[in-house]
């Protein structure tokens, strides 16, 4: 190596500059130099919703009944859809009520108040699993499920097909087709990203069409 003091300075400058360039691609260097990251509109909206949920939880924790009613109104379609995907129809309403009472009782334990939606969704899924654990095998089936002529029978058949799908697809499909929620609403309520919900709906719908024999 040539003994040139300038060469070493240039070398060090090159290495540091290159290193910093690489680092600047990650979040770290932008925070290091206090540069603000550009936020997309969706992310901004999400952040705003999250803070709204957090405020709602704080009001419930403070004892406001209206706040709880508002929470119920926001999340009950999602919870109903999750329970409906797993549990017999006649048990769904009772379990939905149990889920919200359980959420109310344990709301003070929630650390991240912004994630209340996904937390309630998790309670719903756990309660559905618990239902099957508690239920005995020799319990009699309710009678109204045996009527095939009624509209409910056709709906039940489609529901059975949806229930056989993977969890991510069936939850989103039921929320969309049964509860009438739109894709953005499903994303907002469940805490999933828009792209995830879109993929779940699209793939779930393709499987459902295939199984029901519907041509695209």
């Amino acid at each position, binding site marked *: *190596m*040539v*003994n*040139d*003091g300038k060469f*070493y*300075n240039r*070398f*060090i400058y090159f*290495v*540091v500059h290159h*290193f910093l360039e690489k*680092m600047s691609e990650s979040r*770290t260097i932008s*925070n*290091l130099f206090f540069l603000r990251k550009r936020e997309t509109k969706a992310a901004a909206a999400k952040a705003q919703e999250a803070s709204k949920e957090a405020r709602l939880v704080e009001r419930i924790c403070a004892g406001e009944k209206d706040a709880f009613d508002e929470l119920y109104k926001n999340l009950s379609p999602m919870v109903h859809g999750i329970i409906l995907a797993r549990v017999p129809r006649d048990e769904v309403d009772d379990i939905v009520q149990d889920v919200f009472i359980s959420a109310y009782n344990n709301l003070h334990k929630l650390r991240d108040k912004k994630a209340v939606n996904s937390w309630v969704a998790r309670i719903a899924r756990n309660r559905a699993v618990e239902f099957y654990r508690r239920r005995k095998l020799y319990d009699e089936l309710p009678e109204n499920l045996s009527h095939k002529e009624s509209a409910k029978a056709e709906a039940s058949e489609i529901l059975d097909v949806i229930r056989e799908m993977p969890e991510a697809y069936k939850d989103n499909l039921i929320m969309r087709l049964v509860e009438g929620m739109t894709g953005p609403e499903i994303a907002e309520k469940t805490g999933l990203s828009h792209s995830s919900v879109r993929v779940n709906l699209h793939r779930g719908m393709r499987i459902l069409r295939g199984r029901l024999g519907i041509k695209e």
Partner: protein
Amino acid sequence: MKLLIKHSIKIFMLSTFLLTAITAANAQTARLQFDNLKVIGDKARDVVEVNVDGNILKLAKRVLVKINDKDGNAKKVGEAIKDLEGIYVRVFRFENANEYDMADVDSIRSQLKNPGWEKLANVRSKKNNQKIDVYTMFSGDVMSGVAVVISEDKSIALVNVIGPIDIELLAELGGKLNIPDMDIIVGDGKKKEGN
């Protein structure tokens, strides 16, 4: 807290890397490059090339500690070179005058014009076309290198010392630095006489 730890690790790695780079850069500047001297070596009648650094230097310092000669020169030498990092010597002797190209030697001298080197002595004599240059380099208050370039009609001598060295003491000991007369047991225990 996790964020703090994550950032700390990244900054620590960056600063360690920078410090190492800077230290390495600073450490190497006292070393002269003798690559151009191959041309001179081909033309010379006698060539002496000595490189003492790294493990060889450590071993030699250890030997100096063991020696306890009556003059105490070994101890003095040990003191003079205790922090030494390397010595590089090239001596070329020619059959006739002006057999080498002065430009090759001047390329070594040009390295001494780099920042960091300070001129200690500079003598030009028309007799035998003698040119003597003695340069030192300091890192703060500590000497980090010495360079001696002596060129004449029929000989060239280059000495590059890396690390602090007592020049005065070494000059004083000139001529007395013969290998002391001592019995040395080497390797398999066979006794050899000293040089």
